[in-house]
């Protein structure tokens, strides 16, 4: 199945930080019928399971990670009454406060946008092969979030 370049930008991993305004523009550019956009942005917290965290790093399974993000976008577009969706996760070292993951869902009406956005991030956390290493006072630890 051929996936064009713009579609590939709508479900991707990348090392660099991203601008929410720029990512939003990709979604909005797809239709003037969009009236409600729900977004989720995951950021790097300075505490995790009661420990201080000074920095973190994400490792991903190249290929499978992208495939899972694409699957999530495809299923969201199919299962919800929405117009466009974007799913983006960073990898590599990330400083406290920085962006980690972004979901953007555009729909005609807000209820659908919210439902799909929440589903995307829940699904992403469950099925995407990405691992997090936190640097804490006790050293580097590979951690799993509370689901």
């Amino acid at each position, binding site marked *: 199945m051929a996936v064009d370049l713009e579609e590939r930008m709508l479900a991707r991993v990348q090392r660099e930080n991203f601008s929410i305004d720029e990512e939003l523009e990709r979604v909005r550019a797809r239709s003037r019928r969009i009236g409600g956009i729900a977004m989720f942005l995951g950021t790097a917290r300075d505490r995790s399971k009661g420990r201080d965290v000074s920095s973190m790093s994400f490792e991903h*399974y190249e290929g499978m990670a992208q495939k899972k993000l694409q699957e999530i976008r495809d299923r969201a577009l199919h299962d919800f009454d929405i117009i466009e969706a974007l799913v983006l996760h960073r990898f590599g070292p990330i400083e406290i406060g920085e962006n980690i993951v972004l979901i953007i869902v555009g729909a005609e009406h807000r209820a659908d946008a919210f439902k799909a956005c929440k589903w995307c991030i829940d699904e992403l956390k469950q099925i995407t092969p990405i691992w*997090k290493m936190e640097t804490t006072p006790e050293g580097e630890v590979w951690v799993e979030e509370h689901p």
Partner: protein
Amino acid sequence: MKIKLFGVLKTMVPGKQDLDMPLPEGRRVKDLVEVLNQKYPPVGELLLKKKVLVSVNQEIAHWDTVLEDQDEIALLPPFAGGSCVYKKGRIDAYGC
């Protein structure tokens, strides 16, 4: 065959890198797990406890999935997000 390791797993094998080994006799995931359990007991234990899953060609595999020489194999510890595959049994990995 190459076996990709991720997250904490790389710290659990000598050389801290991906593994390379012959296709196991029996050619099924469970045969691979048995070989890994003999050579790398800490990794084997996580596999047997289903804390670590095996993927074949980027899909979660089952105990009985048949392996081919060209398959892309990976061992997947729990994902950062708190993967349901381990917690809610949503993916029927290893027949669990």
